[in-house]
């Protein structure tokens, strides 16, 4: 049985110590998919800051790609090509091949676990169109997205959770992982290396610290969209996992690539799935023109997200926006009819009604791009093992899902490829971790492994600071939206860099009002803000360095793709004085080559 009444191993100095073969951090799609592999093979615990079913995978709407060819001809090669092209060729093609090939099993696995996919008249899994997915290398849109109404992510999350219940996976819910414990080990020949030996977590209910000693640790902590103001991401997506890795001195890959989803509810950022356009909805500007025809004559509204988002911002910038402030465009679903909206897109229909008071059956819905997905993150190889540089694996450390960068998404993720990613690489992470823990012993914990976290929390709680958490966070988010969103320039990025430096300075003087131990969400918001600041800084710093436009990264001052200089992944390292306010003092950038197997870079036209 899944339970929270865990057997304690011991309590020393108020810190609880546990021992598991595998500890998974994060109970979203990636974390639970890994748990389903790991649970039966090794003693496994899942630590999650949210109840598993609250994870943001549940917000995903549109679908999960797999070339099942249930409704029309399709092949995993085409899917690979679309993924590579969609990612503007920054995709590691060996990984993309694995993604597309294993997609089919991933969908079937989920179906067999109970996921209620929509069905074709023959009773097979139904599929629909999605942006950037095409037949035969770009000839025409193809039906590749398997879906369950417009709550595919919800159904994936529920199904995975249900199977965790079936397997009796142990969850530690509302435990915040705040540090990865690394132990210095002597390889015997005098070389000292660092090996992960556990996780330090903060129990929200009691305010107590827990150390989970583990042979293998899997990070599956999701994205960090909260560095932006307008975002489809949850309040809790603060990039803690990515931040923990960063603070450990491990690199982050391709952080400048953030996806802006074209159709967020204007002003709110709540997502309206691309599936709407897959079903035939059309983007229009103030004059009612279907402007995507001008930009992408072949696939029009179903062009990849980076392109559509850019075109929308362009329309608005050139004065063709709709509304009293001319600051959004319109998503027109009225011709789809109530029937299609109620059966295939019920949730988004309700979102528009609830949050904007607009009924999509009769009126077009105001939309603008919203920060949606982090392409970058913790670099891993195709076995989901975390890398400490371009090639070296950190033994026993894995990452999967949005927090990881394999990289199957390159500079721009195709819609439906992320739900796929979490399943394919979540499974690989779990499976590989099981194999790994069979071959090794526990790495001893260092003395007082919780010291760092205790220090950080005590400092925040005891500070007599005057800065409000919310004020700093708001300023960060506003500035990121202004200077590092769909369009960026050296100037705008330089400005944001400066702002962040100032905010980091102010963060040291931040006030935590709640001094209690139990359910201290105030304290945790302060911690999360620290991660946000760190990550935003890396995003902006990496973005400034990439003087080209590619996928999700659009530089106004360098409008073209530059394969000569930038057909490589960015690797960012924390080095030097982590506390200095000048990013240049503590971020070192490097490059990592892109793996190309079949498809040479071509111009990206749709």
């Amino acid at each position, binding site marked *: 049985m899944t339970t929270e009444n865990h057997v304690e191993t011991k309590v020393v100095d108020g810190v609880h110590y546990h021992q598991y073969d595998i500890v998974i951090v994060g109970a979203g799609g990636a974390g639970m998919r890994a748990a389903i592999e790991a649970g039966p093979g090794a003693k496994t615990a899942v630590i999650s800051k949210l109840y598993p079913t609250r994870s943001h995978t549940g917000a995903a709407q549109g679908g999960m790609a797999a070339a099942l060819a249930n409704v029309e001809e399709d092949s995993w090669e085409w899917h690979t090509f679309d993924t590579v092209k969609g990612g503007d060729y920054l995709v590691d093609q060996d990984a993309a091949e694995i993604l597309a090939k294993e997609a089919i099993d991933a969908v079937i696995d989920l179906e067999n676990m109970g996921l209620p996919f929509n069905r074709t008249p023959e009773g097979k899994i139904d599929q629909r169109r999605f942006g950037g997915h095409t037949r035969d290398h770009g000839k025409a849109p193809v039906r590749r997205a398997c879906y369950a109404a417009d709550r595919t992510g919800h159904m994936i999350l529920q199904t995975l959770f249900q199977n965790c219940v079936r397997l009796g996976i142990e969850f530690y819910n509302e435990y915040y992982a705040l540090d990865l414990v690394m132990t210095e080990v002597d390889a015997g020949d005098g070389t000292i290396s660092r090996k992960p030996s556990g996780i330090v977590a903060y129990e929200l209910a009691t305010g107590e610290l827990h150390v989970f000693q583990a042979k293998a640790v899997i990070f599956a902590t999701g994205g960090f969209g909260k560095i932006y103001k307008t975002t489809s991401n949850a309040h809790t997506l603060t990039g803690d996992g990515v931040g923990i890795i960063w603070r450990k001195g491990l690199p982050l890959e391709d952080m400048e690539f953030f996806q802006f989803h074209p159709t967020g509810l204007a002003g709110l950022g709540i997502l309206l799935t691309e599936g709407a356009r897959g079903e035939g909805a059309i983007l229009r500007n103030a004059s009612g023109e279907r402007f995507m025809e001008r930009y992408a004559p072949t696939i029009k509204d179903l062009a990849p997200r980076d392109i559509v988002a850019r075109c929308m911002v362009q329309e608005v910038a050139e004065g063709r926006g709709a509304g009293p402030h001319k600051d959004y465009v319109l998503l027109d679903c009225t011709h789809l009819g109530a029937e299609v909206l109620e059966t295939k897109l019920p949730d988004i229909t309700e979102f528009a009604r609830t949050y904007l008071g607009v009924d999509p059956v009769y009126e077009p819905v105001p939309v603008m791009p919203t920060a949606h997905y982090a392409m970058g993150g913790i670099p891993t190889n195709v076995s989901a093992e975390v890398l400490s540089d371009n090639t070296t694996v950190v033994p026993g450390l894995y990452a999967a899902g949005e927090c990881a960068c394999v990289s199957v998404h390159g500079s721009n993720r195709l819609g439906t490829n992320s739900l796929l990613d979490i399943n394919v690489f979540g499974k690989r992470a779990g499976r590989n971790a099981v194999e790994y823990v069979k071959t090794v012993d526990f790495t001893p914990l260092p003395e007082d492994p919780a010291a760092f976290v205790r220090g950080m929390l005590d400092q925040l709680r005891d500070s007599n600071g005057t*800065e*409000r958490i919310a004020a700093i966070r708001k300023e960060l988010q506003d500035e990121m939206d202004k200077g590092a969103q769909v369009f960026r320039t050296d100037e705008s990025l330089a400005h944001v860099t400066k702002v962040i430096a100032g905010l980091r300075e102010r963060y040291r003087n931040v006030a935590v009002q709640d001094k209690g131990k139990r359910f201290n969400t105030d304290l945790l918001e302060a911690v999360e803000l620290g991660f946000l600041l760190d990550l935003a800084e890396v995003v902006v710093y990496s973005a400034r360095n990439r003087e080209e436009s590619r996928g999700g990264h659009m530089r106004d001052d360098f409008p073209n793709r530059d394969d000569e200089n930038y057909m490589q992944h960015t690797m960012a390292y924390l080095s030097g004085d982590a506390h200095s306010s000048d990013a240049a003092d503590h971020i070192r950038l490097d490059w990592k080559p892109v793996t190309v197997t079949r498809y040479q870079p071509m111009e990206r036209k749709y």
Partner: protein
Amino acid sequence: MPDSQARTLTAPTPAKERPGGTLYRGREGMWSWVLHRITGVAIFFFLLVHILDTALVRVSPEAYNAVIGTYQTPIMGLGEVALVGAIVFHAFNGIRVILVDFWAWATRHQKLLFWIVIGLWVIVMLGFTPRHLINVFSH
């Protein structure tokens, strides 16, 4: 932006003294159940008494008539109206509950059915009350 010093946590603004939680504001479904339960319990207790007094017919006609006589006083007459009201509501709402249990349409339209129950109740009570009170108050 030290815009405002952290407001103190320990001295809450005194709010309306209201220690308990608020009453849950259920709708037709909940209130019909509350009424159903109250009327059910009331009828049950009446029934206990009613069986006992009726049993007096085995004691003697005088004993029975003496007790039943108290049922015919004006005060009891009003009580009988309440009792009949309770029974009629409980009965009609009982039918509603049964319909709701077995018929999907009724499950969806339980609120409408509740108002129909109320409507029927009013009609029945309009038919019964004058007639009964005339009997009670006429000699």
